């Protein structure tokens, strides 16, 4: 039943999203709400979220193929597939954000390697290739040496690309809210946390092949990972916000206040903290509830929503302060605003991306992975 509903949600999301994709491709970016002062909005945030999810899914696949954690046995292919779907989804989200997406090839053929953005495009492309090779090897020779080598390279790459996204923001000395030394350290933690949340959903609701005992043990292990990473995340958050407020730098205080008490307060307290962190941690701390597939899957979903909100709350508040006093009023015109709420078109495009990811993961689980396994078996 849950699966049917999820298929329907994915299909509807994709359908609604096609409208936004059409508008974006043919009408341009005027109906987006990001602008010249807040230049990075929902799509950039969703890129961070989905790329982190891919890195996290890969890290968890390594739990089977590299670290031989018994509870993870039989889940590696699924997580590699999840990474293979979520990474292109993330790249699609950032692709839609480009004013000239037709020129993306220039990043490959005419790159500027002093640009961390260029390095990230190359890094994620390399990571995508590694995921593909890992999945192929997982289907054909999971216990052999090439698989171990590729998985090790992939595991290290997943940490680096996740950390790299943190650097992409953290390296920007102009935006004090982002310019936090530990951001590249935090992002791999966020990645594995979001990977665990995705796995809670998949293992909890969409992997009937797992034995009940293993499912329960795995869910409990994922619950522990979730609790541990949530505590770490909460501490990072507490440290960042209090340090910013105590330091008192105007731009930073404006950004933090927009999160704690300003226009993004509901998203922070309601979605990121209560729905996306406190509630799941409280529920998952109960072994009985954590081992229940439905409950664990639901909490995984809440966690994912919370992590997505957290990405928005890193990207957008970093841009809400004026770069120069009086900037907001100095000149008026469209897209010259320091307020940002995603437009319907932006939500629609994100809906398409999410619909693609949901359907991609489900179709992979239900058909493609089984088909590929049979195909490679027959070839042998």
């Amino acid at each position, binding site marked *: 039943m849950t699966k049917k509903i999820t298929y329907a949600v994915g299909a509807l999301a994709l359908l609604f999203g096609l409208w936004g994709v059409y508008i974006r491709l*043919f*009408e*341009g*970016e*005027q109906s987006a709400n990001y*602008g*010249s*002062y807040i*230049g*990075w909005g929902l799509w950039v945030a969703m890129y961070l979220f989905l790329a982190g999810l891919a890195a996290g899914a890969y890290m968890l696949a390594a739990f089977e193929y590299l670290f031989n954690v018994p509870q993870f046995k039989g889940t590696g292919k699924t997580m590699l597939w999840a990474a293979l779907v979520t990474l292109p989804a993330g790249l699609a989200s950032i692709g839609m*954000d*480009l*004013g*000239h*997406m037709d*020129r*993306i090839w*220039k*990043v490959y053929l*005419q*790159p*500027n390697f*002093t*640009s*961390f*953005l*260029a390095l990230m*495009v190359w890094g994620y492309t390399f990571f995508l290739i590694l995921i593909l090779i890992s999945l192929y090897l997982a289907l054909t020779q999971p216990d052999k040496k090439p698989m171990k080598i590729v998985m090790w390279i992939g595991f290290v790459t997943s940490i680096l690309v996740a950390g790299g996204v943190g650097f992409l923001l953290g390296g*920007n*000395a*102009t*935006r004090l809210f982002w310019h936090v030394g530990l951001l590249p350290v935090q992002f791999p933690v966020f990645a594995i946390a979001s990977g665990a949340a995705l796995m809670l959903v998949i293992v909890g609701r969409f992997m009937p092949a797992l034995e009940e005992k293993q499912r329960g043990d795995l869910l409990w292990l994922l619950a522990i990972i979730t609790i541990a990473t949530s505590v770490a995340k909460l501490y990072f958050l507490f440290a960042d916000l209090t340090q910013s407020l105590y330091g008192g730098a105007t731009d930073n205080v404006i950004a933090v206040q927009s999160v704690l008490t300003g226009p993004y307060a509901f998203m922070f307290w309601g979605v990121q903290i209560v729905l996306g962190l406190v509630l799941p941690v409280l529920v998952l701390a109960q072994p009985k509830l954590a081992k229940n597939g439905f409950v664990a899957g639901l909490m995984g979903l809440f966690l994912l929503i919370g992590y997505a909100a957290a990405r928005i709350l890193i990207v957008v508040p970093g*841009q809400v302060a*004026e*770069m*120069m*006093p*009086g*900037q907001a*009023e*100095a*000149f008026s*015109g*469209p*897209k*010259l605003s320091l307020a940002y709420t995603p437009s319907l078109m932006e939500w629609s495009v994100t809906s398409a991306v999410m619909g693609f990811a949901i359907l991609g993961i489900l179709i992979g689980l239900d058909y493609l992975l089984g088909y590929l396994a049979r195909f490679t078996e027959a070839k042998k």
Partner: protein
Amino acid sequence: MSNEATLIEKYASEVFAGLVAPALDGVQISAASADDPLAKEDVLVRMNHELQRALEKPASERRWVMVIDLRRCIGCHACTVACIAENKLPPGVVYRPVMTEEIGTYPNVTMKFLPRPCMQCEKSPCTEVCPVTATYHNEEGIVVVDYEQCIGCRACMAACPYGARTFDFGYNYTEQLPVFDGAIVGGENAAGYEHASQEYGEAWKREGKHESPVGNVRKCHFCLHRIKDGILPACTTTCIGRATYFGDANDPDSLVTELINKPNVIRLKEELGTEPRVYYVV
């Protein structure tokens, strides 16, 4: 008559001079002392001579800088408007806004104006982050944007500490104009004028929703296309308070060199190490 009044009478429009000169008659303006470089000749004439002199040198030996005297800026926004007209900037794109701050409480209130072109930083954070080298220093050191190279990622916008970059979303001032046969020509005809930008010495048609510079980040370039032809930037020639100066800082006799070597000159956000080429006299 004071120096200022004489200058205005001599060079400003007749209407403007007629309005303002009588008011300045007999007024002693302290800024125009005998050793003031601005007192020697009209700054526009002088800067124009210096510009011609600089253009005789190889491009790599020039160091264009802009100096803005905040004591002279009256917040008229003429520079903003001139820039828009010169570069045919569409709605939402601005190269040189004037920041206005109200200081003090009534009745002790004053206004502070800060024109903000691109700082043309020598160590520019924006060029470093561009993934395809679409924005870079040209041989004269000016930070330019190659509209045909820019992918529109807006990383440079996020990196600029001065908020000096805006994104072209494809708006037009004239697109909503009504059309009435034989009476009102409407947006389609007006668009030809609106789109006739000569930035970087090229004719940008800017047609449709996707043609560059639509979808690109845009910024002040010190009117390079004018400089090339020996004309000062639009903001400089339009400044009615003679508050904006432009020239070659590698020329020891230039006005800008004289001005930036005085102690009452600052640059914005020096602590970031960006080494701006725009100086403010305070």
